[in-house]
Each structure stands twice: as structure tokens, then as C-alpha cells.
């Protein structure tokens, strides 16, 4: 029993920053083990009381240590301006006005929680909030809890939280979109009902939403790295606004004039593609900027091959051109997103040494 408790305690130590854990983890486990042994000698109640106090002590000190180890970066006027611009490009590029607001608020909440660098606390709050006794909320809460667990395992270095948090949120995108559509026709319909998979619109929508999640990664990663975590929050917040369907220029213009709406949409695809490379240029990441630009240009080419087909609801059909275009588009979307992720991760890992040096000197 004592060994099990000690193992659990050691596991919980992962909430501390890596460096702190390496330096003091073993010592803390020894102190915990000894205290547990002495409490066990007194009574079972004393053991429970100790566990409760140890948990409070661990969570509060881990939180404080995380905050100290990763002080909020200085955003500055430049960073806020850049992030606002990034948010605007996402806003202009919005294509969905009929999606579920809560689903996307949830999508945004996950990277936000991670960005605030209190993943365990923030996710717990989100989970509790969403665990209302409503079926659809319960579904969301389930996905948050599962992916929150994934997040906690993936995110070992808090400085990469914004970046890596978007990975599970991308998965969450797909799960939620499947769930939202599935719930409208009955719980589980998305997976069990073969009709779901026969509707091209569903495939397209999932792809589209996943693409937006990847776009978040592309925009937020350099923002978080070079302009501060708070700067990266702005496009995330703006995402939640446009996903609410209350601010979609292309959509509203399209209501007045469909052709103008279409034109705005096509033109507005450019800023999100150009913006992330531009963020990298001031920091000497020329090759990274070119790489991202090429990847996103490829995506643009294949995405705009069939804008009319994509837009026209009556044109949905499983004919050969549709399948080919969708397959190519899906492939490029995923490939470009994956490569961009790898590239940013590489840039991040290279920059760590410099960051540490500057922190030590300061």
C-alpha cells in the first residue's frame, strides 16, 4: 500500500517543472514516504489526512513553481499588434457561420488553458463547467478530459504548451465535429450510421475544421515563441468570436452579393498563409519562413481548385472528381500541417539554448 502511494506521489510530481523535479523529486519522495510511514503507524485516518494535505501541498507548490519557472513573457505593443493582425486574418478567413458555438468555444479553451500554463487547473475548470447534466455538454466534457490527459502527457515543457496544446485540440476538432453531427441524429449515429460517411459535406466539414485547427498551430506557434504567450491568446480569442458566427465578413457580404462574398473568401485565404512566415522573418528564420510559405501555398492551390464545388450544397456528390479533389486536398492539408508542426518544433528546440542563456544572465 505504501509502495503504491509512493508511486502515485512520484507520478504526481510530474506537475512540477522538469528541472525542479530532477533536482528535488527524489528528496520529496523520500520525505513523503517517511511521513506516510509515520502516519500509518498512528491510524488509517491519519494516513488519509496526510494524503489530503500532501495533495494540497503538492498542487499549490507545483502551481507556484510552474509560474516561477515560466514567468509571463513580455508581450509588448508590437506583439499585441501582430497578434491582433493574426486574429483578423483568421477572422476574415472564417467560412463557417453555422457551426456550434459551444463546440468551438471549447476548442479554443483548451489551448488557452494550456497557454495560461496551468493545464491541470484550467482543464479541471473547463471539465467541471462542461460536465453539466446535458448530453451534449457531457460529450464535450468527455473529450476534454481525455484530450486533457493527452495534453498533460505531451506537454512536458511548459514553454511549448501553446504549440503542443493545439495537437490534441486538432483531434478534439474532429471528435467534436463528429459528435455534433452525430448527436443531431442520435448519440453515436456518427459512428454507427453509415449514412454519415456517405455525406460528402460531413467529410468536408471535418476537414475544414481540422484545417482551422492547424491554422491555429501555424499562427500561434511563432507568436507564442517570439511575442509572448499573451500575444498568442489574441487570435485564439478572435477564433472564438468568429466561430460564434457573429463576425464573418465573407458570409455577410455573401448574403448581399454571393459573388462578392466568394471573392472576399478567396482573397482572404492569402493573409493566413502569408502571415506566419512574416512572423518568422524578423527573427532570422528565413528558411523556416520559406518552408511554411511553400507548404501553405501548396495547400492554397489545392484548396481553391474547387471552391464552387465546395460552396454549392447542391453539388455534393460522390463522383470521381469530387473524391479525387477531396483526397488531394485532405492529403495536402494534413501533410502541410504535419510538416509545419515538425518545422516549428525544430525551431523551438534550437532556440531553447539561447532562451536559457538569456534567462540565466538576466
Amino acid at each position: 500500500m505504501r509502495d503504491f502511494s509512493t508511486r502515485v506521489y512520484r507520478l504526481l510530481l510530474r506537475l512540477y517543472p522538469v528541472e525542479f523535479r530532477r533536482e528535488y523529486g527524489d528528496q520529496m519522495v523520500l520525505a513523503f514516504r517517511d511521513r506516510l510511514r509515520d502516519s500509518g503507524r498512528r491510524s488509517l485516518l491519519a494516513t488519509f489526512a496526510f494524503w489530503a494535505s500532501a495533495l494540497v501541498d503538492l498542487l499549490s507548490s507545483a502551481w507556484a513553481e510552474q509560474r516561477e519557472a515560466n514567468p509571463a513573457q513580455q508581450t509588448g505593443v508590437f506583439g499585441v499588434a501582430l497578434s491582433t493582425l493574426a486574429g483578423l486574418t483568421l477572422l476574415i478567413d472564417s467560412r463557417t457561420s453555422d457551426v456550434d458555438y459551444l463546440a468551438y468555444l471549447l476548442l479554443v479553451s483548451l489551448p488557452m488553458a494550456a497557454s495560461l500554463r496551468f493545464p491541470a487547473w484550467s482543464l479541471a475548470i473547463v471539465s467541471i463547467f462542461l460536465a453539466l447534466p446535458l448530453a451534449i455538454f457531457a460529450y464535450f466534457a468527455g473529450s476534454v478530459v481525455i484530450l486533457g490527459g493527452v495534453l498533460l502527457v505531451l506537454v512536458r515543457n511548459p514553454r511549448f504548451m501553446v504549440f503542443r496544446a493545439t495537437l490534441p485540440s486538432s483531434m478534439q476538432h474532429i471528435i467534436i465535429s463528429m459528435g455534433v453531427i452525430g448527436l443531431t441524429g442520435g448519440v453515436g449515429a456518427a459512428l454507427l450510421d453509415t449514412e454519415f460517411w456517405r455525406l460528402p459535406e460531413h467529410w468536408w466539414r471535418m476537414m475544414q475544421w481540422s484545417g482551422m485547427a492547424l491554422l491555429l498551430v501555424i499562427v500561434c506557434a511563432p507568436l507564442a515563441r517570439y511575442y509572448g504567450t499573451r500575444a498568442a491568446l489574441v487570435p485564439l480569442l478572435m477564433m472564438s468570436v468568429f466561430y460564434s458566427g457573429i463576425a464573418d465578413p465573407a458570409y455577410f457580404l455573401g448574403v448581399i452579393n454571393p459573388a462578392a462574398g466568394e471573392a472576399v473568401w478567396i482573397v482572404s485565404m492569402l493573409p493566413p498563409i502569408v502571415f506566419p512566415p512574416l512572423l518568422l522573418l524578423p527573427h532570422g528564420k528565413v528558411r523556416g519562413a520559406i518552408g511554411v510559405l511553400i507548404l501553405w501555398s501548396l495547400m492554397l492551390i489545392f484548396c481553391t481548385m474547387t471552391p464552387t464545388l465546395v460552396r454549392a450544397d447542391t453539388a455534393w456528390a460522390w463522383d470521381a472528381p469530387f473524391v479525387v479533389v477531396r483526397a488531394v486536398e485532405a492529403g495536402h492539408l494534413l501533410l502541410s500541417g504535419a510538416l509545419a508542426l515538425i518545422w516549428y518544433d525544430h525551431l523551438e528546440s534550437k532556440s531553447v539554448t539561447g532562451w536559457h542563456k538569456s534567462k540565466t544572465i538576466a
Partner: protein
Amino acid sequence: MSNLHPNTNDMLPLKPAVFHILLALTDGEQHGYAIMLEIERFTHGQMKIGPGTLYRSIKQMLETGLIEESDERPDPQLDDERRRYYRLTDSGRRVTQAEVNRLQALLQVAQGRGLVEGN
């Protein structure tokens, strides 16, 4: 090794956990759990420090030079050789004394206002 603070008074008032740890180390070097027990003993159980608070405080105290790690390790026959022992530095002792003086001055103020029982 230690990063001594330029001015003792700048470090005051000490956080309760830090002050208690310093007091626990005044009689000699101790390992983490022994510090926890000592604090509990001299506060008659009123103050209990968990491992998280203890080692977070120890980290800060090492950084500010209030304590230092002892090079000596316990006899493996008598204790777990993984344990680290900590002891007060001269700076730590001065800061502890300064904090005691500060608290004593406060106590005198309280006494003057009739707030101390038995007066």
C-alpha cells in the same frame, strides 16, 4: 557557490515556511524529513510543512544563500544515502537573527498595547 544577498534587511520579513526552516536548522544540519519533524515539534504541531512547500523553500533558500547543502552523506547503515543534508550559512544565521529581532520588536509593540496575555 551561494548567492549571498547584499543586505540582510532586504530579505525581511521572511516567509513563514522559510523562517521555520531556518529555525529548524539552527541546531545543525538536517535532511528534509527531519526538518519537517523538527518544525512540527517546536511548534507543537501547529505548523506542518509538506514536501512540496519544503523543497520549494529549500530551493529558494539555496539560491539566496541562506542555507547550503552539506557535502557529507549519512552512513548507509544508518540512513538512506540518497538523502541530502542542509545547513545554515553565516548569511542565513544573520537573516534569522534579524527576523527574530523584527518579531521581537513587534511583540514589544503588542505588549505595549496590552495584547500579550499575562501582562
